[in-house]
């Protein structure tokens, strides 16, 4: 159908491909925006819960008398709404749209995705309510009570089916790297989630076996669901924005398969020093260090693609978020490989350093990548421009500075905490007292990030419902001339 390697100036081919793109974006409009809007709702709720949890750590009396708001419930509620409501929901929306673009296949049976979005929201609501009302299962990343899982799995089954439906309609020829990542992740996530639900919730295995399975699940959600979708987004958006193909397709293949193999073995690095046989832990430490292979591969690929085009960061909102996220991916992954080494883990385990690392991954990488993707997608889905460049700038700078401040403060405080914990002569209460300034800094960072999210939500709502300039063609962003585009 469309020969993308043919740089013809044949106007008929251009018109055909333009119409095809309009049809694809139009097919995605309703269902994808339903998923994205839902995800943003959970982002806002999760942000509120995050602020609450953060304040409670340095001011334990804050809203402390209501059992629904005790720290031990607010903290898992924050994690689960962000992981499932915001990040996973946005990944489905972004992933399916990129899949439809690359497969050149319009989304069919959009009603099924609408129902799936409703199911997804019900599952998250049941789950969040369940945690706050005292029904948390107390397993990290799996705290939603059992009633939530069927809704989430049913919704996700629709997403996987939609992905397969598009893959099967793809034009003959190359399957692009983003498609491999998306295709794989649409199967990996439900396999992981179903395994965890069966072996930990429905028919629980013996207690000592639960933490390995728990962390096999949790870490693989990071590496085999969020990472592939976000890398798929980067591999699609960077070339699309700057108009230059990925530097080395061969490297991207190595990156994909080494990620697929090594990542799945990482999970036990959460249990270093714990009551487990050494081989179980060591295999994960080794796999964690081997992750340097796919991570450096991806970093080299993205960097050499961007070289000479960094000026584009001035005029592309999408690229700012995407490049920030891609660089964060490299940093957090290298940090992860180092932290998995026993000598380092001895100090960092059980401290705020780990929380900082987790947020570098889930926010600076995953969330910022999803923001970038949404900034690219919405104008194409709605035939409208973003209402305000100022709001986008506020969003970017508050989020970027916020998360870096968060990470810096808590990493330093956590390292200090870890070193102190290894000193048996230091009274425990002293160790806690020394972490307080960093916990307060984290709250301020969180306030900054909240401002960014409010700016984002405002932009999104204004775009959906406000009076903004409507243009008839889907390509609204006027192509920069030589003056504005130094590339």
């Amino acid at each position, binding site marked *: 159908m469309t020969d993308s390697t043919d740089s013809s100036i044949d106007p008929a081919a251009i018109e055909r491909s333009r119409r095809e793109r309009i049809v694809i974006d139009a097919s995605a409009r309703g269902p994808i925006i339903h998923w994205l809007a839902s995800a943003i709702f959970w982002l806002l709720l999760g942000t509120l819960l995050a602020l609450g949890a953060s304040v409670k750590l340095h001011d334990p009396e804050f809203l402390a008398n*209501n059992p629904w708001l005790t720290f*031990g419930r607010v903290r898992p509620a924050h994690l689960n709404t962000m992981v499932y409501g915001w990040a996973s929901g946005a990944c489905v929306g972004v992933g399916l749209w990129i899949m439809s673009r690359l497969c050149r296949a319009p989304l069919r049976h959009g009603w099924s995705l609408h129902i799936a979005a409703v199911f997804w929201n019900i599952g998250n609501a049941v789950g969040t309510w369940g945690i706050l009302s005292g029904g948390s299962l*107390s397993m990290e990343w799996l705290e939603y009570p059992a009633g939530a899982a069927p809704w989430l799995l049913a919704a996700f089954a629709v997403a996987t089916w939609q992905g397969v439906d598009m893959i099967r309609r793809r034009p003959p020829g190359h399957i692009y790297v983003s498609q491999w990542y998306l295709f794989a992740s649409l199967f990996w996530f439900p396999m992981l989630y179903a*395994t965890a639900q069966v072996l930990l919730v429905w028919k629980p295995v013996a207690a000592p076996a639960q933490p390995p399975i728990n962390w096999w699940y949790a870490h693989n959600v990071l590496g085999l669901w969020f990472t592939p979708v976000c890398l798929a987004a980067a591999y699609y958006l960077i070339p699309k924005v700057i108009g230059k193909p990925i530097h080395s397709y061969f490297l991207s293949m190595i990156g994909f398969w080494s990620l697929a193999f090594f990542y*799945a073995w990482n*999970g036990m690095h959460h249990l270093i020093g714990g*009551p487990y046989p050494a081989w179980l832990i060591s295999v994960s430490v080794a796999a964690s260090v081997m992750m340097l292979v796919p991570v450096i591969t991806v970093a080299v690929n993205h960097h050499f693609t961007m070289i000479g085009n960094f000026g584009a960061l001035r005029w592309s909102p999408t690229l700012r978020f995407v490049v920030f996220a891609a660089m964060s991916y490299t940093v957090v992954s290298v940090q992860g490989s180092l932290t998995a080494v026993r000598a380092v883990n001895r100090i960092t385990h059980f401290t705020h350093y*780990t929380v900082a690392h987790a947020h570098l991954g889930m926010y600076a990488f995953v969330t910022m990548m999803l923001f970038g993707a949404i900034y690219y997608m919405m104008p194409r889905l709605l035939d409208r421009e973003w209402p305000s460049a100022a709001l986008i700038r506020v969003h970017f700078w508050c989020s970027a500075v916020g998360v870096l401040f968060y990470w810096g403060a808590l990493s330093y405080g956590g390292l200090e905490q870890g070193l102190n914990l290894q000193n048996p002569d230091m009274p425990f209460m002293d160790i806690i007292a020394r972490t307080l300034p960093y916990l307060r800094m984290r709250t301020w960072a969180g306030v900054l990030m909240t401002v960014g999210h409010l700016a984002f939500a405002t932009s999104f709502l204004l775009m959906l419902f406000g009076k903004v300039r409507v243009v008839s063609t889907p390509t609204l962003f006027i192509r920069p001339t030589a003056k504005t585009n130094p590339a």
Partner: protein
Amino acid sequence: MNKASILFIGFLITLATSWIGLVLLPASHYNTQAAQLPTAFFTNQEIIARGQQVYQANGCIYCHSQQVGTRHFRSDQERGWGNRRTVSTDYLRDTVALLGTMRTGPDLANIGIRNPSPQWHYLHLYDPQLTSPGSIMPPLRFLFEPAKENPSADAFTLPDGRRIEPTDDARALVAYLLSLKRSQGELPEAFEPPPK
């Protein structure tokens, strides 16, 4: 890389290998171990089981771990958190292994040995500042109620003079905490060479 079916087989295999290594093997190993134990081993008093549920419902794992490390790796034992490392056998009796992920508060694996007084725990749970000034643990006042007309035996008086008594949830939670004596008794697999 243009055949979707080959891709599919590929990423199934990669997940399957780690599933076998990190899920199937531990699960079958520990399930076998648990199956070999006499049933009486698992009889938790109902109150302790309920206490564990209160522990789970209120998210104690997010600040408290329940695992004692080896002497050469961490200073847990020197801190007095246990006289030996905990091993997986120590958790076989549980329904959920609440290993915990952070040490914003101290490790609790052996809290039943270290703090055997229920009265201390009731005071601490009601308002941690009463026993541990400067603590950032949240107060769990909602686990308590004003002392009734006929106060229970475990009713106590706060520094400001009010009489309160624990609810059944609080009693259960404290019973659970007092049952935490994981490093009690020697286990051959917990052996560590003595420090030099």
